[in-house]
């Protein structure tokens, strides 16, 4: 695949089906949650406008809910609501609540007292005062709240793809992990346009004069309902097994594409984030997932790797990649980093990951324990000959490796260390390295080959079968293309893997990907 040479327009027209359905899902998600937020938020706002004593508490709670990071909120919901539409809608609803409650409240209490009193003095009942005077007068403020909520929702809805609820996030996050700018833009541009258009339309309505506004207010709920209806629940399927793949896996030759072309695997698939995928498999929301072979959660959630009997997953041997400049600047760096070469096997890495991911031990502690057990630990010297900047991607294994390297450098050299962990996906981390933001980070040969170099498919396929070949190829190519050196591999192979729950694998007698295909074809 040479996606980079495609124009954005070619990408978008090529993927127009997907783009269209993702946009509809996005709009649908935004509006379904908006309707619910209005149904809940408006009466709550009215309630606290009547009983002011409650206002502090309710606005406080809504405010706190608003500050929960979106990913965390989505994560909390999986045990309760599973994956897919339900938790996404609930999460969006929670974000939309605060502006709607708050604006309803301020809108109502902001009405001129004489006007309210006049309404009562004319003999209007409480209900009539509310419907004929208070709500119409507060409407511009309430609409402003709905407008804010809509724009927030368009943004947050991109994260719905993390938990298999679809939307434009599938392209955005898929693109980020695949280093595919066109894909990112194909998701980001429509999402941004959506936000801008909805904001403009609602601002127009909000600033309309009373005469027109009255008419629009009859139409608006219908429009919102219709838009909400776009969201045909992605969970409408009848397949026997369900797979959950990360956006990155979905777009890769050594991922879903390979499963289809090499194995002929036909499985109902939803897109989900790595952060919640294992948990969803454990909770039986998913049956097959695309994990990493050394992931600690493999052990924690009792999952089994299906054998890749046709070798579509290339080896992913981890090794630090360092800018040549940094190696010159810090002469002791290479030999220090190479202390770790060959020291961490697959099972050691899985165990280390298990300790951080599942036992929640600090990466520092896990790193130190490991170094001590290997007799490599040395107390830190005071670093005064410059600072080495270590990067890492945003998952557990990378944090541990960063810590180990940090301790080695502090113990064996006179350099100080700055860690910049959590640099998103491959693209972000690698860009940081290229742009001299960091000096090195641990990378995987397979990623280097397929994501960063992207050679033509033939070369890729040939390389991908062989560990040594891959390593030699990426080393040479990186040196030539980027002035970046691959140091010696650390030992373990963190490749992609398909996995299932141990128990289900036994029940269905599925041990390899071919077994899985055969099972699916029969059922």
């Amino acid at each position, binding site marked *: 695949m040479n996606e980079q040479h495609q124009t954005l327009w070619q990408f978008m027209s090529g993927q127009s089906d997907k783009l269209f359905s993702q946009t509809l899902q996005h709009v649908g998600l935004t509006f379904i949650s908006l309707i619910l937020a209005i149904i809940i938020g408006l009466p709550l706002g009215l309630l606290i406008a009547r009983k002011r004593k409650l206002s502090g508490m309710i606005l406080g709670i809504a405010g706190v809910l608003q500050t929960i990071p979106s990913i965390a909120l989505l994560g909390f919901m999986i045990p309760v609501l599973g994956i897919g539409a339900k938790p996404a809608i609930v999460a969006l609803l929670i974000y939309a609540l605060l502006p709607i409650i708050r604006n309803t409240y301020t809108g109502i209490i902001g009405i*001129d007292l004489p006007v309210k009193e*006049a309404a009562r*003095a004319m*003999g209007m009942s409480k209900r009539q005062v509310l419907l004929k005077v208070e709500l119409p*007068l507060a409407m511009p403020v309430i609409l402003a709240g709905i407008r804010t909520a809509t724009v927030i929702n368009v943004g947050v809805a991109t994260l719905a793809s993390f938990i298999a609820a679809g939307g434009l996030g599938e392209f955005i996050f898929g693109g980020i992990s695949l280093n595919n700018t066109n894909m990112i833009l194909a998701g980001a541009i429509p999402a941004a346009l959506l936000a801008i258009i909805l904001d403009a339309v609602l601002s127009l309505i909000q600033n309309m004069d009373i005469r027109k506004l009255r008419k629009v207010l009859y139409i608006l709920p219908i429009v919102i309902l219709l838009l909400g209806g776009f969201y045909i629940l992605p969970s409408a399927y009848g397949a026997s097994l369900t797979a959950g793949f990360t956006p990155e896996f979905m777009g890769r030759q050594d991922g879903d594409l390979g499963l289809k072309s090499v194995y002929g695997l036909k499985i109902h698939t939803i897109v989900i984030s790595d952060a919640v995928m294992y948990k969803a498999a454990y909770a039986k929301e998913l049956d097959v997932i695309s994990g990493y072979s050394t992931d600690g959660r493999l052990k924690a959630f009792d999952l089994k790797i299906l054998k890749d009997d046709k070798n579509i997953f290339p080896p992913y041997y981890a090794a630090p990649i360092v800018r040549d400049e940094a190696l010159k600047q810090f002469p002791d760096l290479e030999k220090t980093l190479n202390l770790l070469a060959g020291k961490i096997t697959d099972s050691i890495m899985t165990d280390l990951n298990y300790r951080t991911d599942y036992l929640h031990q600090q990466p520092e502690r896990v790193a130190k324990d490991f170094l001590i057990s290997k007799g490599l630990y040395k107390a830190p010297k005071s670093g005064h000959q410059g600072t080495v900047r270590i990067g890492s991607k945003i998952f557990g294994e990378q944090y541990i490796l960063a810590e180990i390297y940090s301790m080695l450098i502090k113990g064996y050299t006179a350099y100080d260390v700055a860690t910049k962990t959590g640099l998103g996906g491959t693209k972000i981390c690698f860009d940081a390295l290229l742009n001299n933001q960091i000096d090195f980070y641990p990378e995987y040969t397979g990623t280097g080959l397929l994501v960063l170099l992207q050679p033509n498919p033939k070369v890729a396929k040939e390389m991908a079968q062989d560990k040594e070949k891959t390593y030699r190829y990426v080393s040479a190519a990186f040196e030539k293309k980027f002035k970046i050196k691959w140091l010696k591999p650390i030992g373990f192979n963190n490749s992609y893997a398909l996995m299932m729950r141990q128990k289900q694998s036994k029940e269905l007698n599925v041990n390899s990907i071919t077994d899985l295909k055969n099972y699916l074809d029969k059922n």
Partner: protein
Amino acid sequence: MIELKEISKKFGDTQAVKQVSFSVAKAETLVLLGASGCGKTTTLKMVNRLIEPDSGQILINKQDIIAQNPDVLRRGIGYVMQNIGLFPHYTIAGNIALVPKLLRWDKAKIKSRTQELIKKLHLPESILAMYPHELSGGQQQRVGLARALITDPPVLLMDEPFGALDNVTRTSIQKEFKALEELKRKTIVMVTHDVQEAFELADRICLMDKGEVVQIGTPKELLYHPINDVVKNFLAGQRLVLEFKVTNIQDIWYYLPEGIVYHEETVNADLSIWEAMELLRNKDRSELFVCGAGKIVKSINFEQLTKGFNQYQNAQQHE
């Protein structure tokens, strides 16, 4: 028609209204007069239950209002607010039609009644489609009045209905107000802190101070027979004007020079001295022809008027 019996109301520690009692006869206009904060608005609002009294009883048509549904009660009482309180999101027509709609009048009836009132209140019909903020203060005040009058309620409560106006406009609206046939049949309780306005419009005045009633009586009674210094002091500043207002030409008829003059254009002798002076001042004429009892017409000029008034005053004081 309206009767308040020992009404009291406290807001926290403030005794806003204390043991207030009065009654208003059918078709009478009672003005609640007093300084700012003396409890006029509070008293008025208790009559249509916008505020509930702590103690005491209020009867309208001999029925205790506490026994009635407040919404129904209010629909039967016209209310003009201290700060107008028009609904900004309704057109003028919508504002005026509010209560009739609550009472489920049909559209044609609302329309014809609205047009009738608009005419009486000297408002142009074009304002009906406008919104309150597009009107001048005086027009808004008239609309507020129209809103209160639309269903022709027998009882009208008015809280400083002309308060928001400049002097010139206020005087002219007061005049129109006084001339309105509609209002002559109504039982009205009106609040003001403007003594002249009270004297202009009241049948009787209820002077209040610090939440209590000080004196109730006709303007003349308050002016010539104040029960204490509070009343006297309250009226002191504008005494002369008030005297011009409570005295009419009939009262001083005796002191006006004789002289049989015949003129087609005569004014009635129940004109107050104040009004006669205004006529003499405004219109470019030096004489008024007043038709007194027995169709006798006298011609008076400004000097004769003041002289006659002074003689009348002297005579009063020596009684």
